[in-house]
């Protein structure tokens, strides 16, 4: 505090040299001001709740009274990113049958080899392939897309199982520490929850057994999470050995074919 006090005083004397004549009293006043700075701290629950509202894009959209501006990009971007991700992922199913063996039972059913061989599939058609099950029969390819192609795509978009209430994953922002708490809803297959910091695996949960009940899963971390970390959680379908092996345990997908992944921030 002494450095800060000195800086403030030097600054004050520069602004009003006559204050130097009352140096002792001014010093005491400023020292007291610094000492008595009220340490008001907001409620952590409020901090986390507001952060979730702001950083999750869909929450911001729903807020009444928002004025449309260039801000539309913020909300459009995730949609675009999702579309791009699907465009990247779907060709992998189409062109690499061996890779499809790694997909969990809840992933979209791969197309047939005949379809895979057709490299002339348009972007619009690829987008249709990645559409949710309830959109599978809708024709989105415009005049160029013929009916037979559209029907093939509807098969592609249907999940292998009835997953209308399929698995989902949620993790709130959390404090620094040696473990991460997440909620896994309706895992219908043996699974492992993996915590990443960028590409580094920070921790792996114990085997999560299938259940219809929501589960709270505590993942112990190999390295403590510190304030400012952004962690990614991913749910993997275990191959049966209960040990996470990225080469053989496939990333799990939700009912709409999206990877079961979420991010959280370590707040303090």
């Amino acid at each position, binding site marked *: 505090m002494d450095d*800060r006090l000195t800086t*403030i005083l030097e600054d*004050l004397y520069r*602004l*009003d040299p006559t*204050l130097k004549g*009352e140096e002792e*009293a*001014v010093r*005491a*006043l*400023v020292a*007291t*001001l*610094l*000492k*008595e*700075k*009220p340490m*008001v*701290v*907001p*409620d952590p629950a*409020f*901090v986390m709740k*507001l*952060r979730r*509202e*702001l*950083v*999750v*894009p869909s929450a*911001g959209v729903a*807020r009444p009274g*928002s*004025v449309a*501006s*260039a*801000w539309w*990009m*913020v*909300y*459009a*971007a*995730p949609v675009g990113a999702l579309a791009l991700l699907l465009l990247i992922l779907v060709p992998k199913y189409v062109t690499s049958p061996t890779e499809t063996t790694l997909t969990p039972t809840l992933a979209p059913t791969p197309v047939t080899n005949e379809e895979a061989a057709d490299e002339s599939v348009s972007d619009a058609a690829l987008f249709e392939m990645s559409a949710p099950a309830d959109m599978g029969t809708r024709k989105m390819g415009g005049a160029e897309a013929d009916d037979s192609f559209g029907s093939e795509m509807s098969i592609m978009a249907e999940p292998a199982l009835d997953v209308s209430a399929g698995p989902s994953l949620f993790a709130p922002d959390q404090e620094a520490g040696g473990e991460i708490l997440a909620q896994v809803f309706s895992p219908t297959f043996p699974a492992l929850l993996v915590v990443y910091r960028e590409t580094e695996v920070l921790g792996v949960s114990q085997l999560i057994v299938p259940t219809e009940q929501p589960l709270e899963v505590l993942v112990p971390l190999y390295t403590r999470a510190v304030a*400012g970390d*952004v962690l990614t959680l991913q749910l993997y379908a275990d191959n049966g050995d209960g040990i996470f092996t990225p080469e053989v345990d496939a990333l799990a997908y939700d009912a709409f074919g999206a990877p079961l992944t979420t*991010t959280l*921030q370590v*707040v303090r």
Partner: protein
Amino acid sequence: MEDDSVFTARVQLGNTEAFGVLYDRYLDKIYRFIYYKTFSKEVAEDLTSDVFHKALTKIGSFDSEKGNFSAWLYRIARNSVIDHYRTKKNDVTLDDTFDVGVDERTPETLDAIAELGQVTKYLETLNAKQREIIMLRVWEEKSYREIAEIVGGTEDAVKMAYSRSIRDLREKCGQVSLGAIFLACGLAETLLFHDFS
């Protein structure tokens, strides 16, 4: 630590995670700034929430070449407090926002004030702008330029107001030691919520 402008640019390009970084940097400061003006946890939470939602909505209009993000955010906070009180009173001037809540102070807010240090209470014997400048300069360590952006006016005017505020406070509180403040300013208790400007 990367500059705020890096993150504001990312947010303007649609990266909401970048807004999370700005939120983490400023949440406590904005909350405190509002709390000092309202002395109510509920109001501070409501207004802080409004501030960040407005910032998120309006960030497309923020130009980092015309000012920094911090001052822009504080200005939103300041205006939110003004708007909050304007909905209750129609004749509020911008400079009176600190005091306008006085009539509406509840036992809760009075308790909150009582829990603050004695010097903090005597800050209320200054006028609203003086008080605001001292808080921003001494407690929040803002530059004069940033304070000028937040409260309006020129940098020179802020410097003058700041040194005069310290002088006024020193004169009102007499020879300052913590114990002396209590004695010298004891009578100020009755004048606590009045604006001396």
